[in-house]
């Protein structure tokens, strides 16, 4: 156990050093405002470091890391507000293939996802209570539109939840024939796009109740990874708020001496630590019956922590906080985006309540 923890720590520290070399605030600012922009140096480094392979089993040319071990890296990525959302979005496809794919499909796609040659994304209707109603599956083909898909501007392959003739279908499709409609958003580095499917050939992973359950499992796993990223963002904001509160003086003393500031930072710290703890807990429950419940708790905690820290850190910084140059708005943009990308808090409150009610019966 001790050696595993040390290994995790080392992975995270290495990730932190690499990210500090590769991703800077001015770099990211330069990419902002271009819909579908990708911070290539980040993605190149992520592949070179094996991060794209981290959650792929060794049998398919991956590293087979645990969710917790890779979570430590995601935490560092979040701290840096790094660009290219593919690690989280590809993970949806990896997870769906491992849980529900045919062996031939796994062999075909997992090694390419591991190397990063193939980019995955997911349209599971999370923002719409798992039923976007705008995508149909019939006769082995997907038809319709999947709105606002993260990584959709670049993805090669996607798992989607669609309406079939006899209930929901979880399907997988290569996106060659798909039309992508990019749009401007507050965080253009997420590569968000509407995917328009003109009768695209797709394979079935699951049907009916099994399909929605599978979609929820994929979302839960993504939510845990995302929660680590959100907790990392929150941790960076706590440190930046603290540093500013110690350095900036008003009325002859550091502003951190004033209750209005110090209590804000204490609240931020509490929320960010709870988010980190909830993410770690959820990662440890991977494969356990209460995984979905733990994932929902981590997601809710992480949304609140990152949102609150992003807002309050700007307040602590005063005028400087709202300048373009400070880059604090990168966290604000990312916090808001991650808060809705896998479904907003209300969806996860429902998921959590449903698991708790099922447990009580």
């Amino acid at each position: 156990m001790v050696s595993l923890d040390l290994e995790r720590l080392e992975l995270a520290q290495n990730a932190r050093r690499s990210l500090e070399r590769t991703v800077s605030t001015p770099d990211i600012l330069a990419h902002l405002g271009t819909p579908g922009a990708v911070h290539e140096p980040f993605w190149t480094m992520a592949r070179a470091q094996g991060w794209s392979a981290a959650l792929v089993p060794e049998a398919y040319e991956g590293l087979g890391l645990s969710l917790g071990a890779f979570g430590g890296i995601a935490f560092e990525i979040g701290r840096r507000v790094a660009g290219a959302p593919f690690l989280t979005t590809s993970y949806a496809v990896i997870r769906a293939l491992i849980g529900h794919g045919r062996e031939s499909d796994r062999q075909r796609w997992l090694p390419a996802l591991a190397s990063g040659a193939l980019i995955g994304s997911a349209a599971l209707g999370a923002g719409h209570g798992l039923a976007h109603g705008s995508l149909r599956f019939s006769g082995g083909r997907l038809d319709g539109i999947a709105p606002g898909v993260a990584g959709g501007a670049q993805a090669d392959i996607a798992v989607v939840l669609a309406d079939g003739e006899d209930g929901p279908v979880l399907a997988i499709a290569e996106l060659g024939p798909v039309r992508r409609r990019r749009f401007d958003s507050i965080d253009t580095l997420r590569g968000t796009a509407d995917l328009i499917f003109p009768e695209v050939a797709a394979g079935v992973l699951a049907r009916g109740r099994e399909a929605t359950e599978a979609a929820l499992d994929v979302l839960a796993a993504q939510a845990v990874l995302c929660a680590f990223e959100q907790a990392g963002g929150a941790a960076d904001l706590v440190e930046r708020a603290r540093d500013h509160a110690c350095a900036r003086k008003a009325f002859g003393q550091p502003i951190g001496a004033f209750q209005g500031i110090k209590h804000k930072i204490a609240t931020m710290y509490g929320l960010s630590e709870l988010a980190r703890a909830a993410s770690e807990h959820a990662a440890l429950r991977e494969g356990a019956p209460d995984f979905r419940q733990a994932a929902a708790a981590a997601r809710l905690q992480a949304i609140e922590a990152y949102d609150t820290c992003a807002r309050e850190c700007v307040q602590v910084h005063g005028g400087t906080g709202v300048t373009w140059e400070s880059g604090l708005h990168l966290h604000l943009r990312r916090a808001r985006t991650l808060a809705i990308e896998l479904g907003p808090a209300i969806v996860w409150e429902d998921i959590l309540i449903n698991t708790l009610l099922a447990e009580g019966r």
Partner: protein
Amino acid sequence: MSEVETYRDRARAWLASVEPRFGAAARLGLREDEDLALGRAYLRARYEAGFGGIDLPVEVGGQGLSAVHKRAFELEEIALGPPTVYFGISLGMPVPIVTRFASDRAWARERTIAALRGEEIWCQLFSEPAAGSDLAGVRLKAKRHGADWRLSGQKLWTSWAQYSDYGVILARSDPSAPKNKGLTYFWGDMRARGVTVRPIRLANAHHDVCEVFFDDVEVGDHQRLSEVGGGFSVAMATLMIERYLSRTAPGSGRRSISFCRLRGRPGSPAGRPSRTAASGR
């Protein structure tokens, strides 16, 4: 019907008549310079219709009515969404202060009317890098130069300084006095030699505020709006207006909505509200 209600009806009728020209819809897609030009035209029309400087004294070119009348007009104006933002500081604090404290009354009247007509804009040069909440900590130096003054130092977060013709300035005239006793309040010409304005890019990619540098700028003693060393009380008078102002125009939800709508101008990187961000919490 009360007198204020009658006044509000008149305001509503006039605003409706100018909506096609100055309303929120007319502003969509405008560049900032075009929006500012439209704002100047709107202020001129507003002044000519008798709705400029509602609560300012008649003697300086205002309407001589109450703050309640002003509020009634603004509540109607908010719904129209005209480009008044560039004049908010100008007409909010500096102009009323000049009308109250300038000793040359003819000059004060001239400036006030020009500002009410949108021909001139004033800024408020208060905050500095080391003086934000702690306003009495301002360091910009005012040094005697014969009977007159020379100003040197830096101001920060000065709204719309890039469009301003004049500014009110809080400066330190006596570094040896206790910090709120050593201040003097002036007005200055923003085009004077030695004044440099540098707009600051904000998180939404707009440039609503500026850094302003003063390098040995000549200021006449007639430009003084307070006693020497009595600047802090005029600064407090300025901030009292600001405090009450925050209860009026910007406090309205309807205005905030039209503001969000208008800020998403084409060509402003990442300045648009996200479709998805707007729909989720």
